[in-house]
């Protein structure tokens, strides 16, 4: 088995915090949730970077799916229709779904 040792480089940073935020953070360290204040900051930054990464992935996924749907729908019957024809077709679908979902309760004039 080969053991790989990873050396992490560290950078010392001075930060300025509002007193209230500092006091609340210190309380978390005192409760034992973090081994020290640096540990708390490192953990918070990792969490923030993870969320940012997930948010960016979501955005990329949206664009990818829109592009794929657009490429696929380009050659369909729907793409050959005019705007007015599509609106008319959507109206018909809307009414049909209305009848299915609400028709028994509501009679539309």
């Amino acid at each position, binding site marked *: 088995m080969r053991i790989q040792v990873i050396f992490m480089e560290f950078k010392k940073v001075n930060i300025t915090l509002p007193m209230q935020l500092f006091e609340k953070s210190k309380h978390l360290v005192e409760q034992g949730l973090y081994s020290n204040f640096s540990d708390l900051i490192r953990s918070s930054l990792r969490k923030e970077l993870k969320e940012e990464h997930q948010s960016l992935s979501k955005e990329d996924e949206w664009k990818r799916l829109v592009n794929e749907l657009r490429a696929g729908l380009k050659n369909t019957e729907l793409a050959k229709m005019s*705007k007015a024809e599509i609106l008319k077709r959507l109206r018909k679908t809307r*009414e049909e779904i209305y009848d299915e979902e609400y028709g028994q309760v509501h009679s539309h004039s």
Partner: protein
Amino acid sequence: MKSTAKSIVILDTNEFVFGLLGNQKYPALLTRSLNEFHQNFNFRVSRQIVKEVLGNIPKDYQKKFFDLINSGIIKYDDKPIDNNLLVKYQTYGLKKGDDVIAAFADKVNATILISENRHFLKGLKTKRFKVLSAEQFLKEVAK
């Protein structure tokens, strides 16, 4: 920094259909850029709207559309509309089914309903939310 209360925005079925076909300038631009606008707006979609889109695109693309809806940019509400709310919008003289969309916008406290439907754009008089076309939204709100 996390943002606070974002405006809730509904896209009508026609915006998705035109947007995904890509042949109408503003709906195409809006749909493609929704992932950028979602930092400032909360987009919602209703059961009725999803069913209408699914009913108009070929079967081969229905799963992909569902993946799009579930990709995290839009929040999907699968619950039917409450009868009282539906009756309220029926009295506005909306066409069959348009009342369901307007009632949904009301239900989720939307501030904007985006639609190319002229009955909505000209006919719906409510102070609960604004009805804008994709062009109006892009030029006036999301600029």
